[in-house]
């Protein structure tokens, strides 16, 4: 291991470490623009110059591996002078428009210029100007500000796997762009806004909205897919203005999908901000007292077995816990949190979570996708798969319609037939999985949300067990969820109890009149056109499909407006935190349910959220262990039976409209319009990388 001396401190680092990384280990900060630890090294901004003894010229530390005996000076006169020179060169063509630049206040160039800039310019010639580009509805461009660090190019080519940006032209005429004007077709494209060290790429929906120092920042988690990406919610004056990723190596690294980032403008549109009661076929505004009383009156009048509840995809665990407790007290057993009809089995936790873990994907060497399109169901998981693929020695196969995951995928079947073949063992991938050192399979909702889903679940377990996916030190059985509430709901046992009905049964019961009250907790992904004579209570935050068919609407809070517990697809319990208050008269969901319980005369045993959480922790201890993955006990799940040979259908047909929030978002609508010509799910041919 080479020994180096940096600013007088000795350090031993593994061979191959760059000078920059060695300096970081000592906590020495080196200015940089093009270097980013998650991207390939480019070494083109030259800002990270340091002096290395015996080297005639300053050295770009990000691209230079240490050598034994290096004596490195990061703060010497020579190094500082070199950086001053680089800064002066960068500022030759960079406009001094910080007062009107969206990056102002969080700009790397601005910050470094404070340390290495001059107080005036010696440049007297014309500055160069670059024509604006159109990268679609999400990323705004001001290419005159670009300093050609190429982070955006490298991100799209390597991490997102959509090589659409490049540097065309040469020298002073070099421009970053797509050459042929087009919208960036990656579902991770928003990350290049964060990566851009200057104001060349900024957020289009957030353009000229706020300055970073005006914002109140709340650390939370995203719920628009089941990844549980860690986010920071920035708000001002009670309004959410933007969402940024937060670092979590185990989940989203530092990326988030475009939906997580940009769907937030849907949080102020189509909101339910006061209770509504249906009178003469029309929803009319009412007050909380009459709404709660009506709910209680109806619930009192009906025996428990005629009450049913469905929890939606964006529900926090607390509200589902409260609803289960409330309706359980009334004797209702028809509860379900699987509104897409997925035949998930709540009895055995490893049977419904992503056991390998998202970070664990990097240790796998073969992956079989069954009825899932991770790119559109969980873009961050797909980025992890791609990251693993780029390291080499990783085979990926998919059962289902053709896919474009940005990396090569072997298509080894269309649907149930291939799954049956795998169980029998006469499928080439049975031996591939057996031979692999760390094989994994990912079971998607496309395979589970069909009538024979339970049988496919059983088959997947059989494949996992016979092909050696389940070992003491490795669990390669994974379920990839689409809904943020799903694992939490299954953990809480928000599934039909003895004699209870599942989603299909509940809806059939509504039509036949056997179910008299249907309580929808944010459930919008259902076909509610015919609910018979059932009294439908919708509690949620958006005037979407659920509210449209409800007889009583109770306005709840969205994920940014309440403290809530969410469990991601790995089974990782994470806390979302309130960034703003719910609009109008809307209330936090657990509190609404607590109020109904009081009106029923069977008050739930908690008056505050911490009390609720204490109760939840007693009955479901796992949900109190935040940010930890608890090992589950492998067991039996699924049902034996025949599997229909039909092809799988992926659950996400439109990435930009998967839930009530993204459907209400104008930005997402624009994305849909932009990419409608090129459907996101259509397989693309040729050289899309």
């Amino acid at each position, binding site marked *: 291991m080479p020994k180096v001396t940096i600013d007088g401190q000795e350090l031993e680092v593994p061979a191959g470490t760059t000078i920059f990384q060695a300096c970081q280990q000592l906590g020495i900060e080196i200015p940089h623009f093009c270097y980013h630890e998650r991207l390939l090294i480019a070494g083109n901004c030259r800002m990270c110059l340091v002096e290395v003894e015996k080297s005639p010229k300053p050295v770009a530390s990000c691209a230079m591996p240490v050598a034994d005996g290096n004596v490195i000076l990061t703060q010497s006169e020579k190094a500082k002078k070199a950086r001053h020179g680089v800064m002066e060169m960068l500022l030759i063509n960079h406009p001094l428009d910080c007062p009107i630049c969206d990056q102002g206040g969080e700009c790397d160039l601005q910050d470094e210029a404070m340390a290495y800039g001059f107080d005036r310019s010696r440049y007297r010639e014309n500055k160069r100007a670059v024509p604006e580009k159109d990268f679609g509805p999400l990323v705004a461009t001001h290419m005159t500000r670009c300093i050609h660090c190429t982070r955006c190019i490298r991100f799209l080519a390597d991490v997102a796997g959509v090589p659409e940006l*490049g540097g065309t032209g040469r020298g002073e005429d070099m421009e970053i762009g797509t050459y042929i004007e087009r919208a960036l077709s990656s579902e991770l494209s928003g990350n290049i806004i964060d990566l851009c060290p200057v104001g060349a790429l900024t957020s289009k929906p957030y353009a000229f909205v706020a300055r970073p120092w005006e914002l109140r920042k709340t650390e939370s988690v995203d719920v628009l897919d089941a990844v549980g990406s860690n986010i920071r919610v920035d708000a001002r004056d009670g309004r959410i203005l933007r969402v940024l990723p937060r670092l979590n190596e185990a989940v989203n690294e530092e990326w988030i999908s475009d939906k997580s980032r940009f769907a937030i403008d849907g949080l102020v549109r189509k909101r339910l901000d006061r209770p509504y009661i249906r009178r003469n076929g029309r929803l009319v505004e009412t007050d909380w007292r009459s709404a709660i009383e009506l709910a209680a009156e109806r619930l009192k009048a009906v025996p428990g077995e005629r009450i049913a509840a469905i929890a939606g995809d964006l529900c926090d665990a607390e509200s589902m816990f409260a609803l289960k407790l409330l309706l359980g007290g009334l004797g209702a057993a028809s509860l379900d949190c699987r509104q897409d009809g997925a035949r998930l089995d709540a009895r055995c936790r490893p049977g419904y979570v992503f056991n390998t873990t998202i970070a664990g994907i990097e240790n796998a060497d073969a992956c079989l996708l069954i009825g899932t399109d991770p790119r559109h169901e969980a873009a961050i998981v797909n980025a992890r798969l791609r990251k693993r693929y780029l390291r080499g020695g990783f085979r990926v196969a998919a059962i289902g319609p053709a896919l474009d995951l940005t990396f090569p995928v072997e298509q080894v079947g269309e649907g149930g037939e291939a799954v049956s073949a795998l169980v029998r063992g006469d499928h080439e991938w049975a031996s591939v999985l057996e031979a692999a050192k760390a094989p994994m399979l990912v079971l998607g909702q496309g395979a589970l949300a069909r009538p024979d889903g339970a049988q496919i679940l059983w088959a997947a377990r059989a494949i996992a067990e016979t092909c050696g996916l389940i070992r003491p030190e490795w669990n390669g059985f994974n379920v990839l969820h689409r809904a943020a509430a799903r694992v939490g709901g299954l953990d809480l046992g928000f599934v039909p109890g003895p004699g209870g009905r599942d989603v299909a049964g509940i809806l059939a019961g509504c039509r036949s009149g056997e179910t008299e009250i249907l309580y929808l907790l944010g459930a919008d992904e259902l076909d509610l056109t015919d609910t018979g004579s059932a009294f439908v209570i919708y509690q949620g935050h958006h005037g979407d499909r659920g509210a449209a068919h409800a007889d009583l609407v109770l306005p709840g809070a969205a994920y940014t407006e309440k403290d809530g517990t969410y469990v991601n697809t790995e089974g990782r319990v994470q806390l979302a935190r309130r960034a703003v208050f719910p609009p109008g008269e809307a209330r936090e969901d657990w509190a609404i349910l607590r109020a109904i319980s009081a009106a029923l005369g069977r008050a739930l045993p908690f008056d505050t959220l911490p009390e609720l959480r204490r109760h939840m922790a007693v009955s479901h201890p796992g949900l109190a262990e935040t940010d930890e993955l608890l090992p589950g006990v492998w067991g039996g799940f699924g049902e034996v039976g025949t599997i229909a040979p039909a092809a799988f259908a992926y659950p996400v047909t439109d990435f930009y409209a998967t839930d009530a929030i993204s459907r209400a978002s104008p930005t997402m609508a624009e994305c849909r319009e932009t990419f409608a010509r090129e459907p996101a799910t259509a397989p693309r041919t040729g050289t899309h990388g």
Partner: protein
Amino acid sequence: MSEPVSGPPFEQPADFEFTAENLERAKAHIAKYPPGRQASAVLPLLDLAQRQSGGWLPRAAMDRVAAILDMAPIRVYEVSTFYTMFNLRPVGRYLLQACTTTPCWLRGSEAVVAACKRKLGIGIGETTADGLFTLIEVECLGGCVNAPILQVNDDFYEDLDGAATERLLDALKSGTVPPKGSATGRGGSAPFKGKTALTEPPDAAVAAGWTRNPPGAEKQGEKEDAG
């Protein structure tokens, strides 16, 4: 050449396909590189495509090359916009590249450029209405000993002055391509006023005894090293 956005509008052909002959050549180029490294053949393939398309590189040709080499199209655009010898707009049958870098300028390149402009009635970067000539200004062509230089397609015309340039353009216009090389008729970069050295064949004995390292030279070298 610069971006295809400047200059008069022109039509991009809808598609491009290599001729059978050029496809063979392309395959030969690709075969020079190890499997999986076929992208290395991007320069020769773009050159083939440009020659086939009449001296310029349509976008469809770049896309075709990208598809053949299994590259993202943007990676090909990056290459073709970087190298100035790829023309991204249509050019005339004769692409006149006038060198105006210092040595050519000292030797009268201004007269060459002026002659082109006068004779053809076009400015730098323009194409004649008949589509025969495109005039561009280029940096050093590496032929300084025969300055000034005008490159016509692949060939250098050297030692030009205004009159010689006009004669050259007249010939090209009439359909004949004059022999490339010096306009004054000198061979290579021989002196204008005839040879001043090596005017007769060297002595046969000297020629026979001459080697690259005459005896003693090595010793001398060693001494220098030691010193």
